């Protein structure tokens, strides 16, 4: 990096300029911003973990609009970043273009896989419905009212894959136990429908959806809409009955205030995969392609029950283990539409 002309000596803070060159990791967010409580934030956590454990330097740029993607990527090219992380399907086109134009740079992108693969990009994809399936099974086993609910932010695959897996988990439970637990907000036979807030930031909407789902009898709700889900958590807390299932990260860790109502979370471990890609790149082991998080390799999972552990009987835990095994060995198959590989 060229040194700035020494015209303002006062500006040269000792901390600003360090002699040794650190490995530089740079993240471009989509328009949701770094604090979206969802994939941008989770991927960034991977980068921060790398700062703490591997001593890399991490920066991010928030995109405010689609045209910023390319611009921000260019800014990081100019910064000579060693690894560029992009997040979300919306950055798919821009990342591809940038990677192809700058073959000497290394990239990783969350939630997108390229076919054919681009040699300098690692696509991180997640078979989230497998974990959501477990959550659905758990919810069906736990509900008091016989109804559970889910809703999404926008009807897009990274969101609906959660909802679909969740609903299938409930249906499987019904099938096995002969019960009739109902899922509000998603019908596996109607992938064009579903309940959506059409927003990833309107938390009052999240609250409203929570209230109405509870009014219709749902007592366990899985919101797949980033921070909008926190509105739902507020609604459930206020009503004093019912539980929420978090998504992406373990909500008990990210929103400890709501620990008493968080039954579990459907983990999509973007932080872990991102961290791994950073580590590989740093050690010179970077190879382009796809890394898929599945229930089998732990890339997606169900979070621990924390405070509510007592609610989940050992028997149910065993059943969940059994379901997990069946998902892994292929006895239980999920929707082809959501197959990531």
């Amino acid at each position, binding site marked *: 990096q060229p040194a700035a002309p020494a015209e303002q000596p006062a500006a040269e803070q000792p901390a600003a300029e360090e002699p040794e060159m650190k490995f530089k990791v740079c993240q471009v967010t989509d328009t949701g911003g770094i*604090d979206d409580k969802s994939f941008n934030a989770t991927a960034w956590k991977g980068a921060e973990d790398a700062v703490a454990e591997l001593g890399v330097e991490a920066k991010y740029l928030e995109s405010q609009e689609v045209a910023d993607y390319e611009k921000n990527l260019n800014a990081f090219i100019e910064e000579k970043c060693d690894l560029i992380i992009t997040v979300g399907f919306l950055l798919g086109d821009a990342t591809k273009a940038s990677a192809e134009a700058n073959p000497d740079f290394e990239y990783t992108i969350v939630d997108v896989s390229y076919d054919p693969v681009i040699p300098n990009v690692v696509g991180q994809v997640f078979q989230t419905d497998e974990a959501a399936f477990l959550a659905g099974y758990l919810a069906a086993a736990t509900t008091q009212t016989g109804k559970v609910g889910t809703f999404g932010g926008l009807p897009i695959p990274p969101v609906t894959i959660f909802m679909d897996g969740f609903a299938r988990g409930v249906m499987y439970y019904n099938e096995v136990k002969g019960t009739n637990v109902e899922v509000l907000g998603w019908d596996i036979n*109607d992938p064009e*429908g579903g*309940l959506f807030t059409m927003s990833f930031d309107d938390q009052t909407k999240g609250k409203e959806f929570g209230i*109405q789902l509870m009014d*219709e009898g749902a007592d366990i709700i899985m919101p797949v809409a980033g921070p909008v889900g926190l509105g739902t958590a*507020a609604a459930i807390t206020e009503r004093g009955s019912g539980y929420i299932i978090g998504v992406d990260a373990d909500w008990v860790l990210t929103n400890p205030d709501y620990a008493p109502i968080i039954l579990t979370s459907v983990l999509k471990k973007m932080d872990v995969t991102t961290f791994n890609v950073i580590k590989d790149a740093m050690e010179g082991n970077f190879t382009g392609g796809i890394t898929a998080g599945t229930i089998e390799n732990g890339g997606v999972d169900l979070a621990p029950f924390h405070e509510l552990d007592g609610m989940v009987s050992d028997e149910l835990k065993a059943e969940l283990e059994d379901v997990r095994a069946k998902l892994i060995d292929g006895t239980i198959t999920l929707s082809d539409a959501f197959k990531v590989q």
Partner: protein
Amino acid sequence: MASTIIQRKKIETVSPTRKLVMGIVFVVISGLILLFFALNSEAEWITTFVMNPGGLERGLAGDWVLPTSLTLYVLVGLTLGMGIYQLLRGFGKQTNAILGVVVALFVFAFLTWAAGGKSLNLGGMLSSAVLLSVPITLGAFSGVLCERAGVVNIAIEGMMLMASMVGALVGSITQSLIIGLLASIAASVLLALVHAVLSIKYKINQIISGTVINIFSAGMTSYISAKFLQRYEYLNGPPIFPRFPIPLLADIPIIGPILFNQNIFVYAMFILLIVLQVALFRTRWGLRLRSVGEHPKAADTLGINVFRTRYMAVLLGGVVAGIGGAFFTLGSVGRFDEMMTAGKGYIGLAAMVFGNWTPIGSFGAGMLFGFADSIATKLSILGTTIPPQFMSMAPYITTMIVLAGIVGKGQMPAADGEPYEKE
């Protein structure tokens, strides 16, 4: 001296075309109910309307269990009857009210059909509608206060946004609801003061002044949020005002749970509705405030301080908008996120215009928006085939149709938006 009293002949006020058009509208609505709902329902369907919002123990009422198609045919008959009466005789001055009734019956028919063979929590939906209307209505009240005094305020969105951020921040630091609420109000009032100074003292175009504040608030709240609130969780976790059932009233079936078992923001809305309506139209304070919005010079010649009155109105508008803003964080979700007011302030303005610059009208319009919102959610949950995007467009389209004059032209304060030049 009575010689020049000019007695003018009046032309007939209710135009015959309007009478005819309205009649046809009623009949068409009746036809729509028949075609889309009545003929589209199975004979054995039963519609269950649950009247109790979930999670409440007080004021419970029994469910309404209705045979779906019979109900629908009754509704077809009712609306058709009103259409025919309108065509033959005409409802005269009542036409608008009857239009409201017919539209309400249509919506009821729609719900009856959509919930055919299932159950629908009508009580919950209405209770939700009340809650959803709070920020819109409070925004509209803020607008009424300002505009009745002659100051256009499109900065309500910005004021609410800033209030919600500051409420979350201060509420989190102090963990006190009251201090958080007061801080919200203070923040909003500060912006109102800026608007007042710019538009009253410096006499700059009031829409521009409002735009300045909206851009500033969007920038400032996002900036603070990105720099502090999202980084340090302890700065973004204020407490939330709990539900507070009003003794006795909360036990009334149906109405109790919907209106009287809510949090203080809902009550604030009702209290402000009554207080503002009475104060504006029945007190000295209101007479003076309105005079300043109608004819500031005349008010000035009678010793009313136009500037002071306008400042007071705008600052009070700031207080009301501040309460509306606090609703988002302290009254609803207990957390601030960028742009979380999501345009409610603008919709509040639409509600104010819709409500003809009166508190009661604004409240009605606010309820309508809230109702449209909650019905859209409800229908998505029930799984109708209409894309949710179209459901959420409904209130916007309704507003445009209403503004286009179906309900007639409103009476805007005569000096609204005009700076007062003293010399």
